[in-house]
């Protein structure tokens, strides 16, 4: 499909080194599209096509925590919400919780449940959108779907679901016709133009591609519906606006039975899509990609941390918190926050004056890229601006736990819950493993990460309405929706909000003095995963996961994209100013009871 390849060998077979000098070569991928934010990946590839070294850089800095300082604590949650329009509710919620924790506010049970339902809507929105709209085209070759036999594909869909979605023969014919029109015209591909179609590592059959493509289009429609779920209680989405310090403002919607029913019906529709399309497609991917090295290469960072997620009853969560070390599922450790540190050896910040987090003042120090060469789009060496691995190269810092790198995200959450015997999670994981014939160890892969995200969505889709039922019951006897509180300008407060969000464990830490926020930090999932090399030369999850990867075509590094997308990067989130090297985030700790804010 790529007309620029005509200058050299156009075949996608093997490593194209004909136009390249021998020896290790650099491949730059920037911008990485289909993510939130601005991200680049650079790899050094040997003559055998194997990635020898990898570097990941975030290329945007905004400094929202600096902006938070000096503002009213009631304004900051809305400001922090603007960290990200995709995680549009996560930062709003955790920031609000941090203020409540600081001010010693216990929110009403109704408010906690409504917040949880909005959170469920976010998870059920975010994960399918990631799988289909962002990650899907790394697995699905649209052009191959055009060759499929719709009748055959329609039958095949029953292999993966008893109740398939949008895979009737006529549905599939229509999908094919729509896309055919698109593809037949040189300019017609619009946003799908100039992709890596026909790449040798696409594994689905034409029929499987067609099923997934039909779901891709259906997911676009479903995501609008799920966004409405959040808007029912949140006023709008993205950037809902119904959480205040002390509770929620949407009491009129909560007391309106028609409104509540609207939420429930949409929830059930999405539950059906998750169970019969999303689940089915991941089962299909597990079958077809089980021997594709680029998604089955074992991951090297096997330390995982997860937070509590989705309150469904007083003190009961759907997702469990805890830590797994070295992939050992026999023990789930408690998280000792004194052991969490952050540093910026290779990040674009000053690090020469270690400061206490309360006084933390991370001054940016941007050194940019170095002018050099890398493999260009036509398979020849071209000029480009490259990362200097010896120097600073990213706006993201490197968090460590006891000096170790850690992965957070749905994989961590599912593994922790599974290891803890969580009654909501274990049956769903076991069912998937049985259906695909995979072992638990197969989860420590790119495929596993993508699978875990789906399993987490399924757990929430299948059990999240417990919070809804409890809300209905509680509203019969209690209409409280917001707690009263006062802020004493003469007092100092500190607090945090913490828990599992779609991209992993998120925490916001705040300190209030003279009635305004005097310091603020967010510890964000993508920071844990995407950070650069630390002072000891240890790499984080993104970079280690890229090393050892075999790239079939240096000018079309689909394998790199697949690995990076599997983390669901949220880069605007990841770049948040935190404390300087070696300081303990735990200094912010006030209450040893984890997540004490949301439990009532």
């Amino acid at each position: 499909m790529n007309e620029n390849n005509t200058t050299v060998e156009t075949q996608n077979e093997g490593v194209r080194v004909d136009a390249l000098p021998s020896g290790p070569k650099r491949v730059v991928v920037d911008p990485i599209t289909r993510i939130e934010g601005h991200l680049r990946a650079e790899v050094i590839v040997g003559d055998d096509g194997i990635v020898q070294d990898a570097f990941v850089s975030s290329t945007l800095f905004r400094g929202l925590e600096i902006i938070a300082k000096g503002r009213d604590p009631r304004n900051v949650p809305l400001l922090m919400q603007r960290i990200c329009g995709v995680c549009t509710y996560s930062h709003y919620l955790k920031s609000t919780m941090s203020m409540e924790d600081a001010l010693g506010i216990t929110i009403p049970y109704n408010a906690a449940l409504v917040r949880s339902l909005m959170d469920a809507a976010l998870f059920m929105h975010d994960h399918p959108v990631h799988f289909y709209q962002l990650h899907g085209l790394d697995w699905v070759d649209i052009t191959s779907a055009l060759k499929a036999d719709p009748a055959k594909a329609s039958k095949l869909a029953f292999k993966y679901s008893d109740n398939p979605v949008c895979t009737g023969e006529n549905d599939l014919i229509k999908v094919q016709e729509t896309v055919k029109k698109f593809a037949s015209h040189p300019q017609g591909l619009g946003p799908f133009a100039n992709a890596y179609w026909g790449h040798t590592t696409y594994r689905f059959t034409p029929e499987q591609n067609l099923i997934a493509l039909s779901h891709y289009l259906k997911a676009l429609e479903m995501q609008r519906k799920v966004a409405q779920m959040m808007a029912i209680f949140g006023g709008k989405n993205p950037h809902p606006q119904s959480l205040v310090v002390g509770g929620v403002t949407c009491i009129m919607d909560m007391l309106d039975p028609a409104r509540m029913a609207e939420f429930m019906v949409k929830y059930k529709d999405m539950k059906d899509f998750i169970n019969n399309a999303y689940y089915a497609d991941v089962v299909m991917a597990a079958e077809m990609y089980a021997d594709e090295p680029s998604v089955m290469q074992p991951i090297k960072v096997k330390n995982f941390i997860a937070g509590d997620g989705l309150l469904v009853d007083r003190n009961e969560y759907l997702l469990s918190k805890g830590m797994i070390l070295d992939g050992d599922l026999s023990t789930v450790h408690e998280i000792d926050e004194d052991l969490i540190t952050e540093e910026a050896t290779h990040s674009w910040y000053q690090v020469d004056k270690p400061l206490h987090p309360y006084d933390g003042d991370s001054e940016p120090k941007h050194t940019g890229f170095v002018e050099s060469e890398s493999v260009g789009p036509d398979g020849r060496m071209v000029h480009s601006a490259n990362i200097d691995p010896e120097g600073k190269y990213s706006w993201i810092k490197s968090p460590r736990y006891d000096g170790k790198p850690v992965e957070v995200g749905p994989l961590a959450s599912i593994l922790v819950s599974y290891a803890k015997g969580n009654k909501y999670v274990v049956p769903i994981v076991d069912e998937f493993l049985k259906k695909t014939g995979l072992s638990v160890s197969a989860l420590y892969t790119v495929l596993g990460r993508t699978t875990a995200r789906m399993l987490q969505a399924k757990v929430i889709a299948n059990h999240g309405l417990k919070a809804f039922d409890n809300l209905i019951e509680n509203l019969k006897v209690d209409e409280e929706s917001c707690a009263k509180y006062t802020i004493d300008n003469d007092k100092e407060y500190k607090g945090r909000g913490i828990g599992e969000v779609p991209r992993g464990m998120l925490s916001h830490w705040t300190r209030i003095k003279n009635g305004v926020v005097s310091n603020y930090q967010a510890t964000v999932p993508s920071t844990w995963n995407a950070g650069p090399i630390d002072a000891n030369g240890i790499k984080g999850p993104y970079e280690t996961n890229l090393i050892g990867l075999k790239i079939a075509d240096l000018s079309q590094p689909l394998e790199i994209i697949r690995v990076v997308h599997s983390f669901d990067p949220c880069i605007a989130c990841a770049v948040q100013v935190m404390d300087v090297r070696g300081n303990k985030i735990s200094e912010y700790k006030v209450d040893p009871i984890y997540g004490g804010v949301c439990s009532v």
Partner: protein
Amino acid sequence: MNVHQKNTSYDTLYKTFEERIDQLKRLPRLKEESSIEAVIEENGFSRRDFMKWAGATTAMLSLPANFTPLMAEAVKVADRLPIIWLHMAECTGCTESLLRSANPTIDSLIFNYISLEYQETIMTAVGWQAEQNLENTIEKYKGRYILMVEGGIPNGDTEYNLTVGPHGKSGKKISQHAAKDAAAIFAIGTCSAFGGVQAAAPNPTNAVALSEVTNKTVINVPGCPPSEKNIVGTLMHYLLYGTLPALDVFNRPKWAYRLRIHDLCERRGRFDAGEFVEHFGDEGAKDGYCLYKVGCKGPYTFNNCGKQKFNQGTSWPIQAGFGCIGCSEPNFWDTMGTVNEPLRDRLYHTVFGGLGADATADRIGIGLLTATAVGIAAHAAIAAVKNPKE
């Protein structure tokens, strides 16, 4: 900036539109294979649905009902216009807003249908190939493409706090490059229109609005995020007139931003009756009382949220019991005070040298309202129109 149509009779205007559409029809199509009518039909909409939508959009743009057939014609030529959408210092919320449009309504079909040549969140091409797509589009459709930009732009010493692409070009340089040959430029969202959240004090990255890095006219479509209706409506206006819409002092299209949130508010009766929510969760909150005393900035904010709502008419912040935060106003993070208190109780100084946003809103607000005093007929049209959602 204020377009000359102000004194033009509707007949003349109608003729202008017809000429404009004819002119667009003569341009080569980007997609020969399918017409927008076919796409609409394929997606289960009847001709009647389509005309209803066209009628609603006509009214939204404050045009008389007899312009409806022209609106329908204009949509059909929408596929002639390639779009480049750039991401600067942003949160992707505006893109997300766009993706939420419709259920599906025809708005979204247009957005699926128009030629979205470069959009980093949804495009498949990556890295070098992505950069090629951008360059090819600029080259091929020189002077014809519409540029939409999401996000503020780091400037000055910190210009390179945002780089995109294998050559490490700054966001500023890329947007200047794309702006140069654009037929029209829309700043989508408050960040691109006014600098946004990263430009709030102390603005660590010297983030500025798109209009500050280009000499060309930028149409601002602010909001955090703006509704998809306002984005689509702005595009429709461009198709019809071939010129800029009438703009207010902040370059916002008047058809969307001429009235205050307060003017269109469903709780306005409560305000006039003196019925206020005193604190969140009280009996007044359950009865839908006015939110002014718990911080609503509706009286100082110009936007059509109360009428268009969000997520296919599901709700909007005031319906959800939270006051307006003024997100479509310049520098609202610094000028609108505490979100849950009326402005007089603000806690820290504003950029207006102590005058405060109250004074600002009064002065600028009065000025704006005076400037938009024309158009009684347009108001009637707005009042008469029903929500087009199906």
